[in-house]
């Protein structure tokens, strides 16, 4: 979640589900929370019962809308216009300009006062581009986005770091180049009229939302935002989320109870699998995966390029060297740069969509799939299946025989005779997997809460946990490579892999793995108490520094703690980092360390004890006083004043203006989705993201802007009864009975135009493929008037496929490979299509 990371410091939800109950206003946008996170939604209902206002901004009227005070139908892909207009509205409102709370929060806790380089040019100056754009490489050089100020190199470090920047500031916030004024100018054209034109939201409805949010933010009131993948899945998804962070910073809602931004995530540990990443560009704890560039050639080079002089990331060497010790053990020594050379260096984009093309193009030859279903869940699903069919070998581990395992005999193109199994070379090995209740381990939930699940029974038959599979695969490979002194042999030989095994199936001991993740002293294996105990000299090992402290020095796993209460429930599970529940909670107190108000107190400075106290673990050095001023030359967190809540950031402040870290600009800018029926009302010359990675290949055609063959907007979504690509739900009879087949939602207006009634078979088509389903004609979908013309929106759940009990047309058959440049996430929430009555095949042909 770089949208949050770039502005606030961490890519995780800033608040908790329970804290929503203390909100005065909750805006749910880019999410259908009541249906997709039903149990989490009870805190929204609780807030509403206490008098909070609930606003749902979404193209489709759903059960979330039904329980909201306001439902605002919006055109998919226009969210940033709406959010930008909220920013503009707030900045020009009388209240924001007169209430001292906002000024104090913004002046101390954000980079509003920092002067930006005079070389910086905004999209408003350059017709939709920021300064530094290279049209040939479709990339920005961010050097003109930097702070104006002095740059100083740091000397005498054990490990090098980046130069220190002492920015110039204007505390009056009036300088035309201070971040606040730059933001103000950038959003000046995001007006209620533009919202009406671009989003299809009537002016008065927008103003009602804006008034409500502003009235419910301040010293005594807080507003929270909840979002899900309907914000992320856009070519500008990161900037949509970052715009929300910008707005919440301006409104003083970050770090406070009932405020914040809650990312609603879809899988049991999708947060955990980002923290301890099965992602190509990250190492555990959000350390960047080293690249095959001279700047990352050695460990010292890596630190010189990545390590900042100020903020918590100054401690990066402690985290990375401890990781190298955890992985390479005795083979990692101070003399050999802690075996940094053994860490593979990445040389390109190997994210999910690129990976599909690499399979299809024969670069990737073998694939493991564990609990994922790309044959249905992959964008341009037909291409995804062609990619699977081009592999030499494929290992699928799942509970059911999902489409990714059965594509070679069961895919639509095989059933129709277009491809025969005899033509598909892929060697497929399917291994049955265990379910949570059959294994020990932890999940990290949507608000960073790590919870342990006990093994209740052994997995049945030949089903095993992934831990079992990986451990024994690694053991066998170490044997196969024994004595091999090639670089490949040395890499695997150096890996520490000596976990004790337990039980009849010789499962690796998960507590041993947990202790390694937590970190330990190399000398005696004693668990460290937290990341503050990690060292950069090889004396500690730690698998994921942000999870450090999850095992106590006494050996207790804190994710097993189960004592809840009515407030922060600090003894229910463990939230990273260091069990802090609301992130950046220093901002819940005023610059002097006093609660902003009695009603919204969370943590505060206790002058008698000389420490931060309250209901949560302070996300701040516990004894750093509010009036602390860093002495010249200080580094790391010592370089932050006592008023700097965003400890991961260089200056300890939330960033209204992002000098680096985002590839598509320092400020959120509206660009249309890659496929859109309308032009960009702000920048007709630059309608779409100038830096979105595109996949220009014959098997992934795109529609032109306003392509008359594909006049409708389509958005995909989920249902309560199914999970993602269906592997855990479409085969389960109870769930299949509740939601037995795919369907397409269309408005009565469009249905009339096309002569479709509920229950008719329809075919939805794009240049990539087609999907059939029955039509559901419903007023939940509304045509929107965009710039004077009617735009129809079609909704299609994307769970369905050709396997299991609940089947249906594959929505991803329609979607294209296309990415957000920061997150490399696709754009399935808004693209174009056409729809007609009919069937893909004659009835009974299959």
């Amino acid at each position, binding site marked *: 979640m770089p949208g949050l990371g770039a502005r606030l410091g961490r890519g995780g939800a800033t608040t908790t589900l329970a804290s929503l109950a203390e909100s005065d206003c909750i805006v749910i946008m880019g999410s259908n929370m009541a249906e997709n996170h*039903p149990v989490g939604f009870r805190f929204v209902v609780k807030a509403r019962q206490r008098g909070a206002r609930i606003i749902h901004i979404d193209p489709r009227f759903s059960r979330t809308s039904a329980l909201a005070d306001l439902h605002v139908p919006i055109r998919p892909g226009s969210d940033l216009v709406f959010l930008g207009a909220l920013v503009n509205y707030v900045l020009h409102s009388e209240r924001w300009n007169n209430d001292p709370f906002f000024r104090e929060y913004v002046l101390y806790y954000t980079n509003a006062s920092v002067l930006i380089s005079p070389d910086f040019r905004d999209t408003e100056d350059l017709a939709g581009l920021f300064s530094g754009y290279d049209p040939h490489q479709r990339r920005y050089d961010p050097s003109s986005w930097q702070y104006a100020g002095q740059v100083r190199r740091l000397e005498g470090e054990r490990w090098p770091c980046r130069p220190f920047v002492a920015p110039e500031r204007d505390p009056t916030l009036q300088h035309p180049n201070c971040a606040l004024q730059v933001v103000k100018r950038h959003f000046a054209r995001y007006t209620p009229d533009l919202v009406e034109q671009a989003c299809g939201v009537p002016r008065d409805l927008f103003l009602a939302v804006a008034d409500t949010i502003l009235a419910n933010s301040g010293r005594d009131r807080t507003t929270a935002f909840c979002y899900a993948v309907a914000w992320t899945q856009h070519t500008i998804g990161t900037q949509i989320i970052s715009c929300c962070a910008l707005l919440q910073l301006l409104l003083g809602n970050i770090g406070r109870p009932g405020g914040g931004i809650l990312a609603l*995530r*879809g899988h*049991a*540990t*999708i947060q955990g*699998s980002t*923290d*301890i990443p099965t992602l190509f560009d990250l190492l*555990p704890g959000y350390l960047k995966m080293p690249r*095959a*560039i001279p700047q990352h050639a050695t460990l010292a080079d890596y630190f010189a390029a990545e390590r900042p002089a100020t903020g918590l990331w100054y401690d990066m060497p402690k985290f990375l060297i401890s990781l190298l010790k955890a*992985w390479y053990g005795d083979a990692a020594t101070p003399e050999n740069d802690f075996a940094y050379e053994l860490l593979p*260096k*990445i*040389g390109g984009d190997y994210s*999910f969509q690129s*990976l599909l093309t*690499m399979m299809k193009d024969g*670069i*990737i*030859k073998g*694939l493991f*799939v564990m*609990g*994922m279903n790309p044959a249905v869940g992959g964008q341009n699903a037909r291409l995804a299946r062609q990619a699977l069919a081009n592999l030499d070998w494929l290992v699928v581990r799942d*509970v059911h025989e999902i489409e990714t395992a059965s594509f070679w005999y069961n895919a639509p193109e095989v059933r129709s005779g277009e491809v025969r*199994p005899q033509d598909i070379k*892929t*060697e497929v*090995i399917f291994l*049955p997997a265990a*379910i*949570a*209740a059959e294994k020990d*381990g*932890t999940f990290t*939930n*949507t608000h960073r809460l790590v*919870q342990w699940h006990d093994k*209740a*029974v052994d997995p049945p*038959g*030949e*089903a095993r*946990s992934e831990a079992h599979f*990986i451990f024994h695969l690694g053991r066998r490979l170490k044997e*196969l490579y024994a004595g091999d002194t090639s670089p*490949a042999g040395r890499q695997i030989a150096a890996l520490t*892999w000596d976990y004790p095994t337990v039980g009849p199936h010789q499962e*690796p001991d*998960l507590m041993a793995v947990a202790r390694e*993740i937590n970190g330990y002293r190399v000398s005696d294996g004693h668990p460290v108490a937290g990341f503050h105990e990690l060292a950069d000299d090889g004396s500690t090992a730690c*698998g994921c520094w942000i999870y450090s402290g999850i095992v106590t020095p006494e050996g207790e796993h804190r994710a097993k703690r*189960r004592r*809840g209460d009515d407030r922060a429930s600090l003894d229910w599970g463990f939230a990273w980092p260091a069990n802090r529940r609301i992130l950046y909670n220093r901002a819940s107190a005023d610059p002097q360390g006093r609660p902003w108000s009695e009603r919204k107190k969370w943590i505060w400075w206790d002058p008698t004890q000389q420490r931060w106290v309250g209901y949560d673990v302070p996300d701040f050095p516990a004894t750093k006083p509010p009036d602390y001023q860093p002495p010249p030359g200080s580094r790391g967190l010592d370089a932050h004043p006592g008023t700097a809540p965003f400890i991961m950031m260089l200056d300890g402040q939330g960033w209204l203006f992002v000098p680096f870290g985002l590839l598509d600009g320092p400020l959120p800018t509206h660009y249309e989705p890659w496929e859109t029926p309308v032009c960009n009302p702000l920048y007709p010359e630059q309608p779409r993201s100038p830096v979105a990675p595109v996949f220009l290949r014959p098997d992934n055609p795109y529609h032109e802007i306003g392509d008359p063959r594909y006049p409708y907007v389509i958005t995909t979504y989920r249902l309560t009864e199914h999970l*993602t690509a269906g592997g*855990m739900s479409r085969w*389960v009879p*109870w769930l299949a009975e509740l939601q037995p087949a795919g369907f397409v939602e269309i408005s009565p207006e469009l249905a009339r135009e096309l002569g479709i009634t509920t229950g008719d078979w329809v075919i939805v088509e794009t240049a990539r493929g087609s999907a059939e389903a029955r039509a559901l004609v419903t007023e939940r979908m509304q045509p929107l008037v965009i710039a004077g013309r009617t735009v129809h929106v079609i909704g299609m759940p994307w769970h369905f496929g050709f396997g299991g009990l609940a089947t249906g047309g594959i929505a991803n058959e329609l979607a294209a490979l296309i990415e957000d440049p920061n997150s490399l996430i696709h754009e399935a929430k808004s693209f174009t299509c056409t729809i007609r009555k009919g069937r893909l095949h004659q009835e009974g042909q299959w």
Partner: protein
Amino acid sequence: MRLLLELRDHIGLVPNPVSQATRQARSRIRGAEVSISVCPYCAVGCSQLVYTKDGRVIDIEGNYESPINGGTLCPKGAATWQLIHSPLRELRVRYRAPYSDHWEERPLDWAMERIAQLVKETRDATFLHRDENGLVVNRTLGIAHLGGATLDNEENYLIKKLFTGGLGIVAVENQARI
């Protein structure tokens, strides 16, 4: 007192005829062992009580002590029991040879060895020590991994550690981008 007796009669607190079967009826979870789990579906993190008897899961319900779900579960969470006992659940290793049109059954141990051999073969054929610029990269693009968001954190750790740290497999991805 009379009022109390009348009230007792009124609300039916009089001794009623009860059959032997009813008297002996017990909740089916009585005597079961309870383990605490977490719902495997979405990311809300509902706590679950898993009841087992004789090594078999007999029921799963929401954990009323959880500050997150307070005993409740959604339709998916409430179906966790059936996910475990799904009639379509696969419990055997299956193997499809290249160009074949059918599955074959193979022992788990055979499959593990076969996979280890395939990994070694592909890795050895595609491992790159230095790239075209002479930089040490120690990676292979020949093998990829997908998945993680439905697994455990510890499993993600082991996958990243073995695949990336031990084997140089860099195309490791999960659902965070889906």
